[in-house]
């Protein structure tokens, strides 16, 4: 294999199709940036879920003197009712741990949360509900526990923190779906563009390839410059796409989202670094594959 020949073929090929090469680089860059964005959103969703699922719990609020509602017809919860609720929770297979919080403790927590507001002064412990805080073995399986206790007498309300987080996860899932959909569309465009670029390059060099076929150059040798050409364009595009991804994470997440929304840890450039090798390999392999398939059609033996 004569390295110099291959190298000069590639550079003249890329120069001759400069506009097509630029278009190809841009399309690959967008594909890779979108693919990377999709991957980052997915890992963001995973870390957010991991972060929250460790802290997630179900709160079973019990009736106090002032409660209204179906379960509280008899006024404040009685000791017997409380025992039944505790037993129901502790015997449930999905329940990991149960903590009891009485009205005094609820008041302390309340006072901490509303430390600087006047509201702390007008609320008294007996106005707050006592509650069970329930940690689950599998945070996904909250339905069974909620329905097991919500009908019991003395239970005012059962709240599930997961329900509060559901919209966030849905939003992340939606972003991810959009990013992958754009990736797919861009990949289709990239395939067509690579096909056209290679077809044009093959046409430009038909004289050379014709002679090469005639004197018995192997297919591999004839196709190599074209495939490497696509690989270089793919690499350039992937690098640009990764740079765009770094910029996007730095500007959107680093400057805007992470400082303002601190309820979870956010993706940062370390996550982009982790994805970079895969994105580069994907961009290069993909371009080579697309050109190889095109060549099979346009550079016949």
């Amino acid at each position, binding site marked *: *294999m*004569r390295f110099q*020949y291959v190298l000069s073929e590639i550079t003249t090929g890329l120069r001759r199709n400069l506009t097509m090469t630029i278009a190809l680089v841009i399309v690959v860059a967008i594909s890779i940036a979108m693919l990377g964005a999709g991957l980052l959103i997915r890992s963001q969703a995973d870390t957010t879920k991991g972060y929250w699922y460790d802290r997630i719990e179900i709160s079973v609020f019990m009736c106090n003197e002032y409660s209204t509602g179906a379960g509280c017809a008899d006024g404040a919860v009685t000791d017997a009712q409380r025992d039944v609720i505790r037993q129901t929770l502790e015997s449930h297979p999905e329940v990991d741990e149960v903590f009891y919080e009485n009205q005094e403790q609820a008041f302390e927590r309340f006072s901490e949360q509303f430390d600087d507001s006047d509201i702390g002064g007008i609320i008294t412990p007996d106005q707050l509900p006592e509650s069970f805080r329930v940690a689950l073995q599998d945070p996904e399986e909250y339905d069974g526990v909620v329905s097991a206790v919500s009908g019991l007498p003395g239970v005012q309300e059962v709240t599930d923190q997961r329900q509060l987080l559901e919209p966030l996860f849905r939003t992340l899932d939606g972003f991810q779906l959009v990013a992958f959909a754009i990736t797919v569309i861009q990949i289709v465009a990239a395939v067509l563009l690579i096909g056209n670029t290679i077809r044009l390059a093959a046409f430009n060099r038909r*004289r*050379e390839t*014709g*002679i*090469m*076929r*005639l*004197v*018995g*150059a*192997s*297919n591999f*040798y*004839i196709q190599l410059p074209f495939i490497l050409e696509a690989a270089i364009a793919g690499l350039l595009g992937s690098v640009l796409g990764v740079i765009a991804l770094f910029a996007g994470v730095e500007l959107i997440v680093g400057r805007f989202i992470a400082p303002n929304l601190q309820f979870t840890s956010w993706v940062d450039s370390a996550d982009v670094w982790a994805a970079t090798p895969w994105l580069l390999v994907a961009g290069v392999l993909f371009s080579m594959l697309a050109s190889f398939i095109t060549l099979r059609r346009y550079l016949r*033996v």
Partner: protein
Amino acid sequence: MILFDNVSKLYPTQNQAALDSLSLEIEKGEFVFLVGPSGSGKSTFLRLTLREEKPTAGRIRVAGKDLHRLSNWKVPHLRRRIGTVFQDFRLLPNKTVFENIAFALQVIGKPRRQINRDVPAVLELVGLDGKEDRLPDQLSGGEQQRVAVARAFVNRPLILLADEPTGNLDPGTSVGIMKLLDRINRTGTTVVMATHDQSIVDQMRKRVIELEHGKLVRDQSRGVYGYTR
């Protein structure tokens, strides 16, 4: 060296067969003229020999290889044993004489040492020593065709196929090319030349194979062009 056994070739877009049950054998070291009107099947014969096409029916053997059983990836190796010359020279315009010939060796992976040895030798054989740095458009038609012959022969093929090599040349220049092909033939290389050039065929007195409508109509040793024109 070349054996056609009952070979037919039908192109999908044409009703008439390009070759119709053609059987012929060309021995090693022969010089053969392939004559016949346009569309008689001469080019198809050459394309089948190079395995640019596969026959619709029949068996072809070239240089000891059964083309029917030759897998695609081995075709380049067959072509390395066949040199080919065309009417339109097919030189690379941006490469010098030397580079044009060296290209044929480069692309089959020959080492630089061998290229630097074989290219000057073949240039001397075709009578172009001293012109290795010229570009093709600085050469006359006859000289360009010599470059093409040199490129076809530099790898010392067993067979040289020539498709109307004198078609673009004046009679005097054609004679020079024919002498060159004759010299190559005397090194033991089998030469098959498709031509319309009556005077050349008549002068050379070699074996003549005449095709018409894809059929063999004449196979004559030491023949002449014929009576059709």
